[in-house]
């Protein structure tokens, strides 16, 4: 029979100050890791929601981003005649020519302006995306009207329904707020393609074309056919892949988070080891007694090891609790692809919590193994003699 776990639990409770201090030390390292995973998960969630697997983004050959790309109207017309593009109810090919640029707006929390993505598009482009009108209405063709994403309204005081603000060559009227369901589109401002392209002197060379394939099997075929067409001089990738690559926006913060949590974990691991060694030396008499009662060295090893794991588990749970309030926090990072900000919510989901607990148990394993082995190696007589 193994030594009951209750014995370990009671021991941890008996030394509650030491237990708590060690556990909180572990908890803080875990909290940093969980926050880091939550950040990456949050960013991933934004971009996952943004890309439709049936959509293909067409850019100029050599351009990796919509901002640095240029597609002429002639190329767009050629593209429309390509076979294998899905058609809408009226029989139009679903390919939307778009212009993407960035403008500068003052934010809520500072007079410093931030970059915001502006997208000029035609009605088809709106219809192709799963974006809902939250308040107001869509812009009208030929009008200086714009629709702003939900995240934009929270952060930029000028970008409110009914307000007017200046960019390009003049005033623009905000006629609607769109809900991109927390996708990257929530961070954009949309307006009429022709109006916006003429304001930015880009009537001939626009940014990109979004194309829908009829089904998943047709996607690679269509991509090949676009890339091989020398007249177009274009490259094509799936919209999903395009947005996936943008999770790199969080890379500097992610790198920092991993670095810090790993080193902090090493520190907390040493501290846990110290606590466990102290426990072993204090309970010398108990260890001797247990051995006299007939528990083997293996039992002692397992028991102390389990105690260390329990200790780190408490720390892990505590760390997750500490990081949980992050779920309500919205953060922003600069996106080097769009040259504008992306607002995202931290996501402390199951993955983040499991990562945190696993991390804590790892600390417990490292911190517990050597003390447990030391406990198991004690000679009965010596152990009993020590006071």
């Amino acid at each position, binding site marked *: 029979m193994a030594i009951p776990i209750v014995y370990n639990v009671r021991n941890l409770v008996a030394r509650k100050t030491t237990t708590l201090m060690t556990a909180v030390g572990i908890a803080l390292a875990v909290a940093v890791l969980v926050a880091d995973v939550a950040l990456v998960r949050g960013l991933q969630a934004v971009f996952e929601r943004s890309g439709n697997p049936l959509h293909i983004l067409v850019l100029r050959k050599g351009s990796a981003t919509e901002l640095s790309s240029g597609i002429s109207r002639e190329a767009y017309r050629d593209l429309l005649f390509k076979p294998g593009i899905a058609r809408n109810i009226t029989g139009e090919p679903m390919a939307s020519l778009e212009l993407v640029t960035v403008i500068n707006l003052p934010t809520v929390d500072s007079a410093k302006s931030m970059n915001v993505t502006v997208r000029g598009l035609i009605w088809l482009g709106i219809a192709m995306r799963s974006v809902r009108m939250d308040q107001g209405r869509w812009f009208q063709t030929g009008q200086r009207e714009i629709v702003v994403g939900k995240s934009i309204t929270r952060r930029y005081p000028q970008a409110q329904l009914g307000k007017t603000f200046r960019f390009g060559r003049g005033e623009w009227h905000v006629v609607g707020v769109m809900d991109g369901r927390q996708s990257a589109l929530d961070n954009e401002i949309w307006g009429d393609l022709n109006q916006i392209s003429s304001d930015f002197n880009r009537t001939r060379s626009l940014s990109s074309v979004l194309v829908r394939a009829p089904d998943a099997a047709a996607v690679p075929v269509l991509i090949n056919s676009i890339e091989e067409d020398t007249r177009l001089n274009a490259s094509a990738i799936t919209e999903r892949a395009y947005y996936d690559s943008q999770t790199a926006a*969080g890379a500097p913060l992610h*790198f920092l988070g991993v670095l810090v949590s790993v*080193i902090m974990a090493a520190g*907390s691991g040493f*501290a846990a080891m110290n606590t466990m060694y102290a426990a072993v030396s204090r309970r010398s008499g108990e260890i001797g007694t247990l051995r006299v009662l007939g528990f083997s060295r293996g039992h002692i090893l397992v028991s102390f090891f389990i105690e260390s794991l329990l200790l780190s588990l408490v720390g892990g749970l505590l760390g997750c609790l500490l990081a949980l309030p992050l779920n309500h926090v919205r953060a922003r990072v600069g996106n080097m692809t769009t040259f504008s900000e992306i607002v995202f919510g931290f996501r402390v989901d199951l993955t983040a919590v499991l990562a945190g607990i696993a991390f804590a148990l790892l600390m417990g394993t490292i911190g517990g193994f050597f003390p447990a082995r030391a406990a198991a190696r004690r000679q009965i007589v010596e152990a009993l003699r020590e006071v």
Partner: protein
Amino acid sequence: MFKYLPLIVKNSLRNRRRSLLAVASIASSLCVLSVLIAIYRVLFLGSDSTPAQALRLITHHRVSLAQSLPIAYVRQIQQVPGVAAATGWQWFGGTYRDAREPRNFFARFGVEPLQTFRVWPDYVIDQDQRVAFERERTGCVVSRALANKFDWQLGERITLVGDGFPVTLDLTLVGIFDESAQAAVLYFNQDYLRESLPPGSPQRDMVSQVMVQAKSPDEAPHVAETIDAIFENSPDPTKTESERVFLLNFISFLGNFKLFLAAICGAVTFTLLLVSGNTFSMSVRERIREVGILKTLGFKPSTILGIILGEAAAIALAGGVIGCLLAGLLCGVVRHVAPPFIPGIKTLAVTPLIAGLSLTVAVLIGLVGGLLPAFSAARTSILNSLRHTG
């Protein structure tokens, strides 16, 4: 106090394993703390700004950095009183070798060779190389950091394939300059780019930004206002900022770094406090009988307090020193792997000031962590402490 030093040292060595673990634990936390402070320094306090940097202004499109300015602006800006030099600054993205390899990313700008070293007087370059850059249309100059990274020698052929520009530039390296920021940057003649573009291309008449060197610090703010006033009512209004302000804006664009750094520093410091407090209370608890004996021998409670606190400070200091050394190594690693677009990251280092700050934090943490156990030991009566059994 110093006569008890041997006793303090003996005490810290009596349970070597515990002291070692405590030192290791404090060292890792302090390592993180030092690196974070170092990152904070390069991002928000700026590496030591040179006088030339203080005089440098950047004029960009008021709407956004992604929008270009007409090239005619450069001549107009050069006429503004108080301007020493100005050059158009053309961001050329493009790819060098294989774009998928992040190592191949570095900044490339088209500039006016005649103005370049007047706008950046802090760049140190050989006179011959400077003249070569001014003469050779396909010549380019690079920073020392970049030349070392790729092991480029003068005469190296560098091919940049455009993405935003439909051209391929075949450049020859004619000069290598030294600068303090350790930036990876390449400058080429913007006329070469312009002539490679098809005639009639709107890109021929635009530059990304204009870099300006003011004559004196007093004139700089006025110069900025004058420039912006000239273009106020044009289709492309400008915003002129000092290089420093511009960089700070760029950093805030990267994300709420300030908040993240502060939060993590707080967590690390708190962990340190817990670790040291825990260690010292364990070691004091083990020694209560001994403290009783010391008291019987005539040691005053204040002396005992001092001895225990001294031990705590010694262990924390040892952890601090190791932590700072580790942080120095880690900064070296970060310098290598960090993405190059973060300003100043290539100068990341644990400066003497940061090391001093970290060591102070370490000692303070040791003292605070040791205070409670030390007090309780000093206050326990002789009878109780002698009666105590481990």
